[in-house]
Structures are given as C-alpha cells and as structure tokens.
C-alpha cells in the first residue's frame, strides 16, 4: 500500500453516480449470468463488501423483483497475514436463513488486489457449508494478483502501481460514494 502522505496525486476513479451505474451493471450481469439469480446468495466481505452486496440485492430486486438472500462473511480468522500485523478486530458473519448448501454463492468485495482475501473467504466458506458454486464480484480490480484468482464480475479495472492505493468510500460506511486512487509518485 502507498504511504498516506502522498495525497499530492489523488485521482478520482469513480464518482458517486459512476459508482451507482457500475453497481447497476454488475446487478444486470449477475442476472444474466445466473439466468435470473435463482438459487443465488450474495455474501459481502466486511467491511465494504457488505453494503455492496446489499446494494446489488436491492438493484436486482428493483430490476426483476427477485429477492436474493444477502449475508456477510468475515474472513479475519482465515487470513494468512495475521502474524504480520497487530491483532485485528473481527467483523460480523451473518449467513442468510437458508444457509449456503447447494446454492450459488457470489462473494462481494470492494477491491480485488493480491487475491489473498478471496482465498481466505474460500477457506471460510468451506467451514460454513458446501455451495454448488462460488463466484466473485468486485467493485474495483486493481491487478497485482499473488494467487490464481479472478473475478466473475468487475466494476472497473484500474491499472495501478504497487505504491498506489485504492480508496473506496461508500455512504453506509464512509458517508459518501467515491473511489479514489492515491499515491504513486514514490518520492
């Protein structure tokens, strides 16, 4: 991640209305790719994946009148970098009523970067149940994968340098909708 002081070069990648259009598009793509989102569960990865999953479900409902179950899957206890940082507080895990067994689970996160979060999420899913298939939806794919993982639904591909950092803000968690790219000048 980039150093926080480098806000000399802040670029807005998605404005609020861009972000809404992107969520709308992903909702349409989910409907298309899952032939009407039947047997589908959206699981957001805390923190910002959870409101994103809720928004996708709300848009899917608005477009087709289908209620897609939404939940949250905290992956903190499955991270492979726990020992590299101070202890992290846990997020909430809330599975929708019918569980995930035999269903198509779509994991939702804000930024896809190294892929390690998604790996942890796959491990966590494994302990929670056995979905029939797992897909991944992300708002931003910034590249630099360290694991063989790709997203099924991508809001925006942003080529980044490792020194840059992508900041997603959502009204639910941060007060406004915006995606920013900061840093990158690397001294």
């Amino acid at each position, binding site marked *: 991640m980039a150093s926080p002081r480098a806000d000399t070069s802040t670029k807005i990648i998605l404005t609020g209305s861009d972000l809404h259009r992107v969520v709308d598009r992903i909702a349409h793509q989910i409907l298309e790719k899952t032939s009407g989102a039947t047997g589908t569960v959206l699981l957001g990865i805390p923190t910002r994946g959870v409101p994103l999953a809720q928004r996708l479900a709300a848009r899917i409902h608005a477009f087709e009148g289908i209620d897609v179950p939404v939940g949250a899957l905290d992956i903190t206890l499955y991270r492979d970098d726990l020992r590299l*940082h101070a202890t*992290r507080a846990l997020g909430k895990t809330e599975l929708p009523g019918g569980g995930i067994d035999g269903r198509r689970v779509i994991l939702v996160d804000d930024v896809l970067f190294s892929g390690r979060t998604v790996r942890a999420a796959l491990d966590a899913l494994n302990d929670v149940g056995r979905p029939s298939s797992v897909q991944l939806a992300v708002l931003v794919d910034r590249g630099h994968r360290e694991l063989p993982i790709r997203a099924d639904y991508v809001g925006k591909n942003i080529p980044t340098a490792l020194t840059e950092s992508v900041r997603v803000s959502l009204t639910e968690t941060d007060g406004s909708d915006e995606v920013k790219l900061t840093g990158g000048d690397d001294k």
Partner: protein
Amino acid sequence: MIKHLRSAADLDAATATLILDTAAEMAALAGREVKKLPTLRGRTVVNLFYEDSTRTRISFEAAAKRLSADVINFSAKGSSVSKGESLKDTALTLQAMGADAVVIRHSASGAPHRLASWVDGSVINAGDGTHEHPTQALLDAYTMRSRLGRLDGLKVAIVGDVLHSRVARSNVLLLTTLGAEITLVGPPTLIPVDIAAALSPTELAGSASLRGDRLVTGEKALGLPASANPADDGKPSAFSPAAITKVSYDLDSVLPVMDVVMMLRVQTERMQDSYFPSAREYSRRYGLDVARMRKLPEHAIVMHPGPMNRGMEIAPEVADSSRSTIVEQVANGVSARMAVLYLLLGGKA
C-alpha cells in the same frame, strides 16, 4: 493489544469491550457444523494447572483447540512438581519447548506475574490463589451483556465469600471498568476489611480506627443496608477501583433493585475458620432460595461461577430456574477464552 492477561485490571474499557465483541463473534461460530478455525495453527498453548479445575481447564482446552492451537495439558499431579520442581524450573522447561501462551492456575496469588517474567510467551491467569480470575470475569460480563443487553449502569450484587473469592475480585475490577455498579453482600467476616473500611464512615462507624478489626466493624453495621460512596472518605481501597462499589450485609434489602445476582461458592475448606457460625445459619441469611429469588425484579438473572454447593449458597430450584445462567456461563466461557487467545496470540508477536 496487551500481551498478558494477569489481572482484570490489565483491561481498559476499550480492550474489555473488544474482547466481549470478539467473544460474541466466536459464539456465533460455535453454532456451525465445522467449529474449528485455522487462526492459531502452529501455536502452542500450555495449560499449567497447579490446582484442581474442571470447567476452566476444559474450557481453555476447547477454546485453544477450536482455534487450531496445539494444546499441552500439564497438571501438577503426576509431573515433576511432585518431585519438588519449582515454578521457575517448570517455566523454563515450557520456555524451552516454545510455548506461545501459558495458561496458569496456581494456589499462590501472584504466580502468573512471576511466570510472566520467566517466559517469552503470553501468560493468562486462570485463577491465582485468592487473587484474580480474569477470564471468569470476562465470561460473566459477556453473559450479563448477552442476557441484559448492556453493562453500563447495571446493578450487580456479588454475594458470599467475597474475601477469598478471586472471581469476585476480578469481577469488581472488570465490571466497574465497564460501568456496572457492584454491591458486595456477605457476612462482615467475609467482606475484605479494606473495602469495608474505605466505605461509609458513618454507617460503619469510625472506619479508620477500626481498620483491621473486622468483627467490630461488622457488628456495628450488621443488618444495616450499609451502602455509601467510597469517594466520601477519599481513601481509595485496594479492592475497589472505582467509586461505585458498595457493601451490604443484608441480602434481602438489596435484591429488589438488582439486575444481576452473582452467588459465590462457600469454600467449605474454610468452614472451620469460624467466618460464620454454621453452614445452616449462613444458608438462611445469605443463601439464594426460591423466596429470595422472587424478590428480584422480573428481568434479573442469577449467576454462579461453579462449582456450586446446592442447598448451601443456592437452592437447587434456583440453580435450575430459567433465571439461572449457570450452564450458559460455561458455554460462554469457551467463547470468551477463544476471544482472549485470539487477541493475545493472533497478531504479530
């Protein structure tokens, strides 16, 4: 995050709340088909038990195993301790084996503090003498919060042998940190002298001069709902960390306003020491029977850290009633200890 959990006083309100929140997440995981988490894989937790214990040892073992830590159980019986090995030498052995955390129960107050200076890993106090038992306080606080929704402003009576109770001591420290109001209830002989002296100079009559004379202090106040603010006296008690701990010698008078009643075990091994005239008299004055339970407000809960003496400090009907959280406390113990192990061992060493 703190490194050791030796005393409930190690925890400030933010850290304690973090532990309780984490415990809530851990409790949610307990309902899953696969209860095991990979979080502490490759870490070693040693349960070092110099005193007998059922639920605490099993609870720590279950907590560590659910987080995938390797668990080594050590009990003084059948170890080199019976050949005369000292705590220090045992500690050095554990150190050499690379224990990441040592959970210690010892009959000597302060043993965990000494141990922490000999080993590199985290030390978790699982009960030391008559001193402290912080994880019990955490699971009690967690139980109260999950039953009653809050801790701030909660009125909690801790009843019985407060003097010898490490559970009471840790609970007072933790619960006052979290904003609960504690009333200690018991015969004057079983309430620590320092707190009785620090409290209520008027009702306890000349507290300073009576310091150390527990009987006189007791007699004067016997039967009085002695409760006053220790801040009046301006003398901080070693036992009460905040100005909201009260003392009463009359159980019946405090029950109607309590949200929580925590009954302590009468430590029968101390019965010969004439702290009270007879078990029967103790039970009649300070035992929680059905009639007394009816005096509690509708929502109030009854707690007991176990092991209980049914019919002594708590009537069987009360222990098995829906107000009793005794079995819940055991289940919550695993979640609370998982939270402690995760927060102490989960991050960067």
